[in-house]
């Protein structure tokens, strides 16, 4: 069912492309297609990384943090500030932007969310919504709604004669991979990482086993915020952003975890790549496609929720 749907979904851009005569199937076009898909996969790595942050919070606390995209947006601004105000390389600046993000996530958890974990599920939803709103307009108060961007490694690599990859995109992809692998290793090997996984398996048992679950919640939120900010940094060196782009990231991250399966890390990685590839196909093949990429997230999300609510790899029951 899901497989059938995905086949249809991914052929749709081709169908529309053929219908609107944007698709040629000649050599040049095929090379362009390969470029587009490759770029999509790389972009997907970045998406996947910040979606993992969202899925972690969901896995551990059953909370959907709708301010996650705003945290990504904040990351982009942190990156911008370190570049223009302090003259740091945005990637290098992660040495201090990520700890800041971790602290922020920690405090949000401590002062806002710890009190409502395990309560009615709509309370944290509304609270994080309010938080996101406050973040958008706090950033807007300082930076206005103007689009900002960072001129970072604007040139590109010529992979083969015809396939080209933007340098900043390649760097972002590599960074995203490094960070994601780092987080996985932490979850697999480190004592706290194991405790996080134990808590997401079963919070009550974890508590009985002597794990301080509120501490775990705070660490989880911290890591999640750091992943979001890292995502923001990697977005900021490739695209323009303004305070209101956060909502798009939230929807993308949500679509990804729905696609991959809630609380499932590998699922989030696959979902991230799938969404980004879909977006690139849309922008490549549809007339005026770049304006329509947002549709990919909403479309995939709604249909997956309907056809297979647990996503690609999610557990059978909640």
């Amino acid at each position: 069912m899901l497989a059938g749907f995905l086949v249809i979904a991914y052929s749709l851009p081709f169908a529309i492309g053929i219908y609107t005569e944007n698709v040629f199937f000649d050599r040049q076009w095929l090379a362009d297609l390969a470029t587009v898909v490759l770029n999509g996969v790389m972009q997907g790595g970045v998406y996947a990384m910040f979606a993992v942050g969202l899925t972690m919070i969901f896995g551990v606390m059953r909370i959907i943090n709708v301010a996650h995209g705003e945290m990504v947006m904040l990351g982009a601004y942190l990156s911008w500030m370190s570049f223009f105000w302090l003259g740091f390389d945005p990637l290098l600046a992660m040495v201090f932007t990520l700890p800041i993000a971790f602290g922020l996530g920690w405090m949000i958890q401590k002062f806002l969310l710890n009190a409502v974990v395990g309560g009615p599920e709509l309370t944290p939803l509304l609270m994080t919504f309010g938080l996101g709103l406050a973040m958008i307009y706090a950033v807007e108060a300082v930076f206005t709604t103007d689009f900002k961007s960072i001129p970072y490694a604007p040139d590109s690599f010529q992979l083969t004669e015809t396939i080209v990859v933007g340098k900043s995109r390649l760097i972002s992809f590599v960074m995203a991979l490094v960070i994601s692998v780092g987080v996985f290793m932490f979850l697999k090997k480190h004592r706290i990482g194991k405790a996080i996984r134990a808590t997401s398996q079963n919070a009550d048992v974890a508590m009985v086993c002597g794990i301080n679950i509120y501490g775990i919640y705070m660490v989880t939120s911290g890591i999640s915020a750091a992943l979001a900010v890292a995502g923001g940094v990697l977005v900021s060196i490739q695209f323009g952003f303004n305070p209101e782009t956060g909502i798009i990231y939230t929807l993308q991250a949500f679509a990804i975890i729905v696609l991959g399966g809630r609380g499932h890390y590998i699922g989030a990685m696959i979902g991230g790549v799938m969404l980004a590839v879909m977006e690139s196909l849309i922008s490549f093949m549809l007339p005026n496609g770049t304006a329509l990429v947002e549709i990919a997230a909403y479309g995939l999300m709604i249909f997956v929720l309907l056809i297979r609510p647990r996503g690609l790899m999610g557990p059978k029951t909640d």
Partner: protein
Amino acid sequence: MSTRDNWRNLGFLAGWVVLLLFVPPTFSIYIRSFFMFLMMYVILSLSWNIISGYTGYISFGHVVFYGIGTYATAILVVDYGWHWIMAVAASGLVGAIFAILIGYPVLRLKGPYFAIAMLGAAEGTRVIAINWVSLTHGADGIAYPNIENSFETYIAMLVLMVIAVIVAYWVGHSRFGIRLNAIREDEIAAESLGVNTTFYKMAALVLSAIFPAMAGGIQGYKTLYIEPESEFFILITIYMKLFAMFGGKGTVIGPVLGAFILYSVQEYTWIRFPTAHLITFGIFIILVARFMPRGLIGFAVDRGWARKGMVH
């Protein structure tokens, strides 16, 4: 609720209508349009309350119905030469049909999934409104012929508000509303005890879509110019939600009260502190969700100032 209570409340409403009919129009156009927007937010909050307060399906994208309505009205008036009142009425129908179309998939989702699917629906519709240029004129928006219509639109909004209040009152005092409450409390139990939940949820969504669509239509005609970003502006959803939550979701008087108080507050503050007031609203949502989930009315109920429940 006894018949006597119904008559008393109707009298109360009539009193307000007389006040609103004769007082604000005598003042400046600014005062008139302030009250028009205030009434619009009463309509929007009451509508959001039907699906989210009574039925428990929290919508994060309710602006979509409002936006669809502004567009339907503007297209019918500007491109097809309809009379604006006819166009506003037709927008209600368009809103209802749209609610059925998106309700069919999204009402099968629960809790946060419904909320975010609605957010996606609203954002997606905005993107479509920007890009479907032949229908919506795209990002350029649609301009109405320039005329002074603040009095007609004020009266139209007042009439619509009266209808919305009466419908909300009926929902809040009938077995229909009780059944929506049952869905909110426990959908499986409701279904097992005779509530066709699919039908009732759809009915609630349609009711909560019609009025925003029509209110949007009137608002667009009054403003004389619409474009996607402002008609599908997420802040409008936030206002509906916040006003209803602050007053007390799942009640009739709550959203009215919430809209009255908070819209006035925002009108006062936003001219003076345009960004700060939005930050404050964000923080306010957090505080209301955390400490006052049942709003002012819930606060009154907890202290014994008002009776529990909506049917007595």
